[in-house]
């Protein structure tokens, strides 16, 4: 019911472009450092761990492929989704929950402004649009992290590392990760809005809404990651 209303109001006028722009900046731009750092260190540690394992089988040449496939298909979308769930999902639930308990949402209604259109639709659209962009940037940074460790720490040749990366990665690897990211962005915003909008009274109610938003979106991300992986690659 809530999801249906949220989606309906995301596609019907009136729209609030200023609110959408604010959410694009809040959810997208300000999440860039945390997603970038996560992707960078994930790519770096992946190269290190792969090297440790693959040297036992004289398969060091596969490191570039492992790094790029792991990052684009799984790690960048899932870790970015989880990090954004912590940063953005919690913030959405806390903000909307506080608005609920202080009657600001009721005030919107009395001022002839639909809260679904003003509060929920911009967050839903912004998160669904920006997470794929964040993950695409995360893909590049993650692969770069693996490249840096492989070249400067493990002694790989830059040219062969990059050519191995290009040889292995296919468009579908990147696209599947970006589609996952869009779904994860939708989940994060929806859970934040749902729990905030239905927040209980007082500080305890807002606290519980925030916790529930992060926990439910994290679990849903992991479940949908499995389901989408099965759809794309099985």
């Amino acid at each position, binding site marked *: 019911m809530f999801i249906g209303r949220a989606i309906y109001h995301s596609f019907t006028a*009136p729209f*609030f472009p200023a609110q959408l722009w604010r959410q694009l900046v809040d959810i997208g731009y300000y999440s860039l450092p945390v997603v970038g750092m996560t992707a960078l260190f994930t790519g770096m540690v992946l190269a290190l761990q792969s090297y440790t394992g693959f040297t036992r089988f004289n398969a060091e040449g596969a490191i570039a492929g492992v790094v790029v496939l792991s990052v684009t298909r799984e790690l960048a979308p899932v870790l970015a989704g989880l990090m954004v769930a912590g940063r953005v999902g919690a913030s959405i639930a806390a903000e909307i929950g506080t608005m609920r308990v202080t*009657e*600001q949402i*009721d*005030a919107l209604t009395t001022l*002839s*402004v*639909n809260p679904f259109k003003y509060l929920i639709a911009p967050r839903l659209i912004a998160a669904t649009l920006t997470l794929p962009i964040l993950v695409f940037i995360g893909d590049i940074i993650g692969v770069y992290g693996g490249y840096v460790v492989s070249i400067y720490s493990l002694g790989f040749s830059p040219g062969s590392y990059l050519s191995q990366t290009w040889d292995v990665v296919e468009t579908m690897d990147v696209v599947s990760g970006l589609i996952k990211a869009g779904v994860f962005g939708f989940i994060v915003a929806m859970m934040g809005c749902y729990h905030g909008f239905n927040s209980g009274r007082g500080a305890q109610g807002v606290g519980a809404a925030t916790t529930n938003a992060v926990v439910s979106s994290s679990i849903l991300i992991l479940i949908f990651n499995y389901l989408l992986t099965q759809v794309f690659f099985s």
Partner: protein
Amino acid sequence: MTKQGTPKIELIGVKKSFGNNHVLNGVDLVVPEGKSMVIIGGSGTGKSVTLKCILGLLSPDEGSIKIDGEEVVELSPQGRDDLMRKFGMLFQGGALFDSLKIWENVAFGLIQGRGMDRKEAREIAVKKITAVGLQEAVADLYPAELSGGMQKRVGLARAVAASPEIIFFDEPTTGLDPIMADVINKLIVEQVQELGATGLSITHDMGSVRTIADYVAMIHEGKIVWTGPVEELDSSGNEYVEQFIHGRAEGPITRRVA
């Protein structure tokens, strides 16, 4: 404009329960156009729920709610949005939007709800801000920078900014000192009279009742137990009203303290 003799607001047998908690048990209420009705009653007797049912923030389980003679209980979302243009509301806690400046709060309904140009809306907002006794400089502050009394004034300015036909006041003087409470009460009367609007207030504060009301309704256990002109309040002969206006612990209204 209401047809001659049609009440501005009319509630017939409105019931609302939350689980086993029957908050409204058949509320009947008539508010004539251009008059100020104040609902009095203890905490938890259904005052706020009555207001929220009229506004459509809660759906009644049974009964009829009419605005200008038209049924509004099963209104479509678009119909509800249109109906809301008739309303202004001053919330108990102000309910100002933290992230917006004071003038943006006051002009919110004009800009977002009616699509008015920001410059024009700001001019109207500043006029309303000064009309409730605040300085023009307050317009560019944020709600957190204001005292409780100032926030109430801004809430009042926001409630009247779009010149509504009906204005609701939810506990307008709660949390204010007696002098500020009187200032707010007088501002309410001034603003409502200036607009020629219909007022519906809920309060425990007898000072507010005597200043704001043309008519008074007493609610107890989800039912209106007395209603009449404010002049008849002291001679109502209703034991609930007598106990409430004199603030006596003894009487038909009993409180469980657990």
